[in-house]
């Protein structure tokens, strides 16, 4: 969690310095969700999410170096510099993006789950989206098919209570998003997303259900982003008190306290972790800074899975 937090803080600073261009949607405040998913699922369980993807990619095992380089638009980035902040991707790490069109990744998650089911693996596809995305028609079509075909998928709505400036109360009459799942006869629960243990437990149970062939689960994970929607959003639509309240629930502080309290770690251990994380983030920035931009010859690569592109040339 600490690595995710520090990485994001650094990305935010670099964005301010215009080292990172385009968009930058930070995950700060929501780390317990990524942590719980990482510990409760297997390395081979695919994960797919929207544009707020840096932390989830790292939680899935992608190197901070390849992620930072992607933010810089460098050739060594996880999408070769062609995707940027919103479009991370790494097949080797079972991380399937990184998607900029709100809601469009939800059907893809069901497709990945269908492939797992068809191939007879017991992998479970973690399919994530925001509270705003839950209003897209794609969600409905996917929920319907996933329950009908009992696909091994965990749908996760990271309810950070805002879709840009629009709060949940303004985007739906029914504020309990998990109830949408009930309408499909899908096991659906609310989960406290500020504690990695509760997230872990809920995900673990959902994954087991899917592995047993009992189909999808829908988890509405209540979380909070401390920062604006993206770097260009001062988030004037929220009160200081609201943000302050959530900061007292900070998942990283809570976890640190617990580790010390139960003797899982000493102050020295924690200091060492902090030092290691600091160094890792620094390394990732150095790596990105020193990497080259993609070569112009990269323009036509990867458009198709065949070498003779472009089809029409002068």
């Amino acid at each position, binding site marked *: 969690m600490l690595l995710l937090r520090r990485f994001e803080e650094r990305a935010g600073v670099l964005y301010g310095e215009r080292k990172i*261009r*385009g*968009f930058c949607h930070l995950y700060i405040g929501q780390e317990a969700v990524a942590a719980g998913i990482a510990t409760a699922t297997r390395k081979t369980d695919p994960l797919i999410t929207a544009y707020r993807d840096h932390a989830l990619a790292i939680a899935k095992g992608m190197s901070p170096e390849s992620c930072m380089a992607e933010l810089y*638009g*460098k*050739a060594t980035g996880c*999408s070769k*510099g*062609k*995707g*940027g*902040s*919103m*479009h991370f991707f790494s097949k080797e790490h079972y991380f399937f993006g990184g*998607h*900029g*069109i*709100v*809601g*469009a990744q939800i059907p893809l998650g069901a497709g990945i789950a269908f492939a797992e089911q068809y191939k007879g693996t017991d992998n479970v596809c973690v399919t994530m989206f925001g509270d*705003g*995305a839950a*209003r*897209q*028609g*794609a*969600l*409905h*079509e996917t929920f*319907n098919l996933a*329950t*009908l075909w009992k696909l091994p998928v965990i749908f996760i709505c990271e309810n950070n209570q805002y*879709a*840009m*400036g*629009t709060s949940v109360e*303004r*985007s*739906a*009459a*029914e504020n309990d998003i998990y*109830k*949408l*799942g*009930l*309408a*499909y*006869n899908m096991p659906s629960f609310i989960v406290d997303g500020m504690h990695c243990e509760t997230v872990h437990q809920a995900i673990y149970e959902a994954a087991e259900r899917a592995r047993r062939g009992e189909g999808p689960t829908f988890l509405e994970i209540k979380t909070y982003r401390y920062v604006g929607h993206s770097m260009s959003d001062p988030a004037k*639509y929220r009160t200081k008190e609201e943000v302050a309240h959530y900061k007292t629930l900070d998942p990283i502080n809570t976890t640190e306290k617990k580790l010390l309290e139960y003797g899982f770690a000493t102050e020295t251990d924690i200091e060492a972790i902090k030092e290691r994380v600091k160094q890792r983030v620094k390394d990732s920035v150095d790596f990105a800074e020193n990497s080259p*931009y*993609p070569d*112009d010859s*990269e*323009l*036509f690569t990867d*458009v198709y899975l065949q070498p003779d592109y*472009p089809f*029409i040339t002068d």
Partner: protein
Amino acid sequence: MPLADKLRGNPKITVAFTGEGGTSEGDFHEALNVASVWDLPIIFVIENNGYGLSTPTREQYRCQSLVERAAGYGIEGIQIDGNNILEVYDTISRLATELRQSPRPVLIEAMTFRMRGHEEASGTAYVPKALMEEWAIKDPVLNYENYLLNEGILTADRIDQIRKRCKQTIDAGLKIAQAAPELILDPQQEIDDVFCPKMSLPMVPQTAQMSNKRYIEAISDALRQAMDLYPELVLMGQDIAEYGGAFKITDGFVARYGKERVRNTPICESVIAGIGLGMSIKGMKTMIEMQFADFVTCAFNQIVNNLDKSHYRWAQNADVVVRMPTGGTVGAGPFHSQSNEAWFFHTPGLKVVYPATPYDAKGLLLAALADPNPVIFFEHKALYRSLADDIPDEPYTIEIGKARTVSTGSDLSIITYGLGVHWATRALAAAPHISADVIDLRTLSPLDTNAIYESVRKTGKALVLHEDSLTGGIGGEIAALIAQHCFERLDAPVVRCGALDTPIPFAIPLEKQYMPEARFAAALQELWEY
């Protein structure tokens, strides 16, 4: 439609029907959600007849009954026997009264069955015989007839009379249909039916007062003035209210016009576009803001199947402007930089407008809002804050369908729009030996072909430039038109210059190479030398 009634205080309710098969579409979810969050007086009726074409309900959804869906939206869901006319009548009339008092949506699932094929060519071979027999007993006409007989309300004679009268009515209708002459296609009539011809008068500024405004402010200006001009105009879009829109174009609008007319929408482009047509049916105007033009894909079905064809089909105009912050060169990556005007250019029934200057942006947006037809209005994001002009303070319109000659010359014609206008101007400034016409199309549909032909016939050479990727782009159509209509005056092949046929890369150096500006100067020089 219920939104229009609600805004105008009409105590009306809307009834919207779908088959159970149709409920698997995403629009069903979006419509129920928006209707519930906006408390719209609407009854959604699902006629559940057991099959979507040949697909039985058990292969369509897993829940027990479709009214369960209602819980997800916090609305009431009622299942009724759709074959019992009295139950249908009682339920709907009770709800109609309630909804007129306190507007809200309700979901009805009327259980029924279709005794024939999906349509008359396909038969019912896939329906088990027992099921047919089960439902034959529940026939709504027969049962109601028996009920009325039992209650002593009707007699056998009276039933006979009614049946005869029905037959006579149908026979009479049939006769009229059979006697009607074969349709003879009149191409002009066909074309005339595509757009609503009721155009309003052009607006000219009443005073000579001008202010220096950026492209983005010109757009805000036009919207604000249109809000004052048309009380029936409603703005809809994601985060456009208090937040002021992703680009702050509607900043301050809520304070002035209220939340009813400056409507934040959930993230559901499709149903919002559909609501645009519904509002138009009720005589309202809407402006729909796509947060980025890229997201219009989610509304594609509504725009290219409903908004565009309603006038041709039933003389119902779609008084909707869809604003599209478009284009690249801003390092925004593959899903926030695209140019997709060609999709709409290809679709009859839509007008496509694409201003390149603040002056045109304001005048054309006011013209688009005045136009009763659906207009797809492209605004280039890179121009928003980089370009300023003195423009009239007062409202004014620029005729849709008229190009602008940016500069005149004799060697060749550059035909372009959007960012291309600025690329062309820049390239010519760097190549003073070349004397060229620069034509800014401003409107892509309808296309100002006369302006194109006039210029090309004069110079004898044409270079078509656009930001969109080359293949299947608008440049192809323009080149074909020039080849056909200016052939004898051409001194060189028509040249097109567009972006590469790839997605738009994120890395700035790659995006630079992707864009046609990287190749434009060379193309210009080559054509000049030809």
